[in-house]
């Protein structure tokens, strides 16, 4: 297990902030986008790409790298933002979001930009793909980890549970899933639309080891993610409790901001709020 110093935590907070700022920047460029789930994973991505994962922006195909599969592909605005910040591609590309033939489709395409490991968007695919990666790496004795970010609404796809069983059966202890439990999906509260609670017990019963954290607390993310595997021979899952659209007061914890068709007024408020946060971070 590794911890963050206070200074390191502040640095990561700035990165998470920058992710949020760039998510809003892309939505401004494209007029609309999946904002809620992108903003709820900003801290996880900041910690993963700047502290936890072995990656090399100059050699994105490096065999020994750690991999991240964004199973909930609609959260990709946050992934685009963190990859740009980490140096995988020029940040100016972010301004092309929504344009014809842009390298930033609304769900990621691994052949359009370096650093993307899979083409996701249809839910319930990422865990199987990540499981295959983890298995292949293990077979070859490569000491790399595979990280997956899933949504809590996504867990209703049955294919996830096929993958969960297989990952456990094949003892993929190099696999770590973050469930972004922001408790909302398009139609409302996840527990009301289709409940998969108690989540921890469900994952445990599939042979996984589970931890629950505050998904916006960078120290908790760092400590949990660097303790993998939680038990040797078993895959790990972190249930990260988060707030959908975290950072935008008018959109936080609201299902109708799953996909945001941004009005000029809202964009103004968003930019003002982000400026306030930025000022706070500088102090």
């Amino acid at each position, binding site marked *: 297990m590794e911890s963050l110093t206070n200074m390191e935590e502040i640095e990561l907070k700035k990165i998470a902030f920058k992710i949020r700022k760039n998510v809003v920047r892309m939505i401004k460029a494209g007029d609309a986008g999946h904002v809620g789930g992108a903003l709820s994973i900003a801290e996880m991505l900041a910690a993963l790409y700047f502290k936890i994962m072995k990656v090399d922006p100059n050699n994105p195909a490096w065999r020994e790298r750690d991999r991240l599969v964004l199973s909930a592909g609609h959260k990709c605005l946050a992934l685009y933002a963190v990859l740009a910040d980490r140096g995988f591609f020029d940040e100016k590309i972010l301004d092309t979001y929504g344009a014809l033939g842009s390298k930033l489709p609304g769900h990621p395409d691994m052949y359009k930009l370096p650093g993307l490991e899979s083409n996701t968007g249809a839910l319930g695919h990422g865990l199987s793909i990540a*499981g295959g990666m983890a298995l*292949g790496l293990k077979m070859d004795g490569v000491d790399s980890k595979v990280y997956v970010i899933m949504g809590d609404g996504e867990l209703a796809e049955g294919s996830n549970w096929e993958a969960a069983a*297989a990952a456990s059966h094949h003892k993929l202890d190099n696999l770590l899933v973050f469930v972004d439990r922001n408790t909302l999906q398009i139609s409302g509260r996840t527990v009301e639309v289709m409940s998969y609670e108690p989540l921890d017990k469900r994952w445990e019963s599939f042979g996984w080891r589970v931890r629950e954290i505050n998904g916006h607390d960078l120290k908790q993310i760092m400590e949990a993610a660097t303790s993998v595997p939680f038990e040797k021979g078993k895959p790990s899952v972190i249930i990260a409790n988060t707030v959908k659209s975290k950072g935008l007061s008018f959109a936080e914890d609201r299902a109708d901001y799953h996909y945001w068709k941004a009005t000029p007024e809202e964009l103004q408020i968003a930019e003002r709020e982000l400026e306030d946060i930025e000022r706070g971070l500088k102090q």
Partner: protein
Amino acid sequence: MSEAKDPRKVFGEALVEVGEKNPDVLAISADSSSGSGLSPFKEKFPSRHLEFGIMEQGIIGFASGLATTGKIPFVVAIAPFVTARPFEMFRNDLGYMRQNVKVVGRCAGLTYSTLGPTHQSLEDVAIIRTIPGVVVINPGDPVDIKKATHALAAHKGPAYMKIGSPKMPVLNKEDYDYEIGKGVVLKEGNDVTIIGTGTVLSKAYFASELLEKEGIHARLINLHTLKPIDRTLIIKAARETGRIVTVEEHYLHGGLGGAVAEVLALEHPCPMRMIGVDDQFASNGPYEELLGIYGLQPEQIAETVKKFVT
């Protein structure tokens, strides 16, 4: 003509050969290893034979992820369960992600004749060939199966191959040059062209022999690759023989007949007949009798061709 051979056994032996040549080749089973001909591979390379149980959506995703690490997974199971059921996984995780995975649907077509439509696969070619970049192979005899298995292991990219289960007679020469995407003229003739594929290529072959006795010289083409399709050979046949008959153990729409018609309608319109299963869930019963319901026995094929040319 040499002895008929079990297609699954031929495939399983070929997979061992490619496995010997390339340590990245894996076999992936969904609780149907021995029925899929994988037993010799499992015996020879136990650590490269991965069992997943009855999980046909999951195995396509796992195969995709394995391929990203350089592995060459051969996913083998009952045809509808690796095509119709996990179609979106095939489309996105293999096609859209361009992963080097070979999916083999066995006991395809009407093979599971007595088990009924849930286990029959009459739409696999139609749906899988809509996926950009996926090669679709339907070998016509044991020689094709062996050569296709080797060719697929060497080909970089996603592919689907279907095989049946009843024994298949040898029709091709053992030493012929197999190339993905290139059809083979098995018999010359200029009165009409019969294009056959897969399990019923032999029926088309025997039909052409019956026709020969009646003085009808049919050209016979083995179209073992349905995607990419051999446009040149099809257009040449249409130009030189003026009539085309397709023979397949598949629905009439979307399969061989549909694919050939797509080429000809745009590039060289020509009268056609299509033999296969029309728009219905097929019946059940003994395999050979079932083929007879859909006009796929040699005498029936010959009769259809005869009516067409005279």
